[in-house]
């Protein structure tokens, strides 16, 4: 069929008033669900984000950085072992409603402690940093009938690179573009084989209102993060980006799969202050996403992941170094949450990986596969062969999704 893109590329700008996302019929997709993947670059500390306050090894190993529900700044108690970092206010509310769930001691299949290699694995969906040149989320979209994705990033991230159609979005510049200039440029770009397609998409995107009215705007006041300092929303910050993602995905014909990324999670020094601020941003991001996706929240699962956990011990600079097992978070109205998932390996003597890191007992891909199969209806055969090649060892986790549907 003639896609809307091709139609737009061939039409004058003034006539291009159609929406950019092709309308997906429920019959074509099996179900109309949404999935957001949030990547926290830098390595979020699992012991700080989901403190195992009930593990007797924890206070000893974390010293002054240890968090607990009974501390002066109480962590949010989840059960008798785990709590959530004090900054997770909104997430803690969702947890009570069964719409939030941490996974503890999780890691990608690569355990080498390099940011870039680990991020490559988290993004390319293999156990090797150079295991694929495309992203697993793109391959997931390619495995869904009529699938289309959105990457909220100024530059296409590896996670979303590949053959499936994915748009990028980031907060626009304030400058207006003269429509006559655009008319002059269109034939020039149409003649450039490498740039024709992205330019046509760029023009098409402008004809749809890119940001929903209720999304968090850059420059707006951020919710209090406990620091007592007022902060403004950053243009590329999680609340703005997740809010925008929710706005796109909340539309009936919006993208079913989206990606948001954030960085600044590499806490080699002065960790307490950094993690407090960053988790407050993530928490505000989840809240902004929930607000802007609206009713579609009930059909949505969000996964938040990072490339590795950090060392169990504090280093010499009040921070932690690159480690192994860390935490993941799931959220959404379609989630079967309100519990802590994963197998806790303990952090007592002899329980650490190489005597330094929290062990990893859950392969990221097991969580991804569980959500992709039950929530997006991606066939198991495609999950093993295409989305996460050579992942037979990482069995899909079951029971993650409340309204699970089999593949269409």
């Amino acid at each position, binding site marked *: 069929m003639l896609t809307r893109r091709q139609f737009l590329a061939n039409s004058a700008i003034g006539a291009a008033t159609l929406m950019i996302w092709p309308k997906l019929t429920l019959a074509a997709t099996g179900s109309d669900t949404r999935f957001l993947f949030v990547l926290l670059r830098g390595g979020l500390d699992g012991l700080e984000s989901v403190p195992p306050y009930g593990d007797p090894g924890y206070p*000893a190993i974390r*010293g*002054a*950085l240890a968090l607990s529900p009974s501390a*002066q700044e109480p962590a949010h108690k989840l059960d008798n072992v785990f709590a959530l970092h004090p900054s997770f206010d909104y997430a803690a509310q969702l947890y009570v409603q069964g719409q939030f769930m941490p996974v503890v001691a999780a890691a990608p299949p690569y355990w080498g*402690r*390099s*940011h*870039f290699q680990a991020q490559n694995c988290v993004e390319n969906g293999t156990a090797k*940093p150079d295991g694929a040149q495309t992203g697993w989320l793109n391959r997931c979209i390619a495995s869904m009938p009529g699938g289309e994705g959105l990457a909220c990033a*100024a*530059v*296409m991230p590896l996670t979303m*690179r590949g053959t499936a159609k994915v*748009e*990028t*979005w980031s*907060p*626009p*510049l304030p*400058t*207006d*573009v*003269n429509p*006559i*200039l655009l008319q002059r*440029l269109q*034939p*020039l*770009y149409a*003649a*450039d084989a*490498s*740039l024709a397609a*992205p*330019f046509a*998409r*760029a023009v098409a*995107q*402008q004809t749809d209102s890119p940001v929903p009215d209720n999304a968090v705007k850059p420059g707006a006041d951020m919710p209090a993060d*406990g*620091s*007592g*300092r007022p902060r403004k929303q950053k*243009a590329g910050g999680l609340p703005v980006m997740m809010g925008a993602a929710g706005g796109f995905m909340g539309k009936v014909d919006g993208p079913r799969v989206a990606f948001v990324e954030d*960085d*600044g999670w590499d806490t*080699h*020094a002065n960790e*307490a*202050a950094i993690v*407090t601020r960053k988790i407050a941003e993530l928490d505000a991001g989840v809240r902004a996403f929930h607000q802007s996706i609206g009713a579609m929240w009930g059909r949505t699962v969000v996964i938040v992941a990072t490339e590795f956990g950090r060392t169990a011990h*504090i*280093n*010499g*600079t*009040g*921070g932690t*170094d*690159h480690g192994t097992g860390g935490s993941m978070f799931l959220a959404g109205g379609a989630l079967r949450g309100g519990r802590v998932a994963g197998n806790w390996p303990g952090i007592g003597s002899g329980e650490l990986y190489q005597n330094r890191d929290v062990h990893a007992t859950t392969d990221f891909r097991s969580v991804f596969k569980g959500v992709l199969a039950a929530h997006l209806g991606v066939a198991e055969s495609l999950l093993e062969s295409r989305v996460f090649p050579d992942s037979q060892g990482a069995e899909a986790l079951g029971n993650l999704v409340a309204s699970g549907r089999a593949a269409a």
Partner: protein
Amino acid sequence: MNASGNDVTAAVNRFGLGAKPGELASVHDPRAWLNAQLARGADDGNAFADLPGSLDYLREEAQLQMTRRTFKQGDRGRRAFLLGDMQSASQDGQANAAALKQALKPYRQETRKELLAEAAARYQVTTVSDTPFVERLVRFWSNHFAVSVDKRSARLFAAPMEREAIRPHVTGRFADMLLAVETHPAMLLYLDNVRSVGPNSLLGRRTAMRLARKGDMDQGKAGGLNENLGREAMELHTVGVNAGYTQADVIEFSRALTGWSVPYPRDFANGGQPQSAFVFRANAHEPGARHVMGKTFAAGGLEQGSDILQFLARQPATARHLSLQLAQHFVSDHPPQSLVERMAKSYLEHDTDLAAVYRTLIASPEAWDAEARKFKTPQDFVISSLRAAQIGLDGRPQPVLALLKDLGEPVFNPRSPAGFTDNSANWIDADGLWKRVQAAEALSAYVAQSNHVPLAFAQDILGPLLDEDTAQAIRRAESARQAHATLFASPAFQWRA
């Protein structure tokens, strides 16, 4: 298009920073033009003469820290202090905080002024430079040794590192540049080496004993090893990630680097006058011999770490890693293996002399292949626009800084020690192209309304790359400003071809 015309545009666009008016016409022998620039080395035209050095910046930071410290009293708990939690602080604490803010204000204003002055000088140099190939190399190495200013403690030092550690060595030996970078405050602060302490060093043992006596289990206070610099120096700066080194090598190298630091605020206190922005703290240095990648380095002080750097700089893996990156930057995302090998050979045969590697690149036919091209990064796009129209910033770089941030390449802020991607495929996407059109409109507003004849201007800047359709579009522009916007936004202008 004739072959020699292509070589000229390649020299000016792909090796250089994009044409200044008259530049394309002035180049008769592209290879000789590039080699002559190498002979001149980095020439900043005195643009940096009035800027403070890293030691000045360290002194300033020390004054700020000491001011802050005088306010660090009261009954706030450690965690509340770390969080800046004023609600749980006492009344005194709140008054204290307001006074502190007031006291710090002049420092913050000064810092902001300095950051802008650094940026203004940097973009001034690139806009007017007559040695654009060398300036591109400076940017290349600056990104190779990326320092990201989202790390607050490093943010005053990223621009000085480029001036102080990279420019002096850009046509010299890589081994010298490497040592200059790894001893620069920017890198030592960015990758957390300043407080990395050998556990068996004098300082490490003393701290451990003191804490044990007090029964203090807070390991955050104890001196400890930090692996960040050691790891990235191997993975990103020298041998590269597939060179076969192990976690044990990283730890050994990091131990050798313990004590590599900068003057602390207390070193400036009480009339203290540190003479260098780099300090080797022998009492924090881990004693003993080190074993890195199969070689043993005898126990020693500063020279132990610098010997390892010299060793790493001369590894064949480093030669290949750097040559591949250079070829990817100057030729294409997937450069011919033959070219990379030739450059790597040159690197090793000339004892890490970078000028020799560049000359090999220039002399290689692969570098002049008609298919060789790169998509301009946002930096390339903005700089080539500034050069084309000779847009002067008059000491106000803010519009350019904002533009680069919005285009996805904020200045000195790649957010990772790996730097910004140098892969063209990663920069080509719908959102980015749209923002370039917006940026072209914005930049055209800064073009002096001189008596440019727009078409002649476009011919001057693009030369044989100006195709008939683009020429037509520029000819039809209703104003000089729209003609400039059309040029900057045209697909022909987006490539380093």
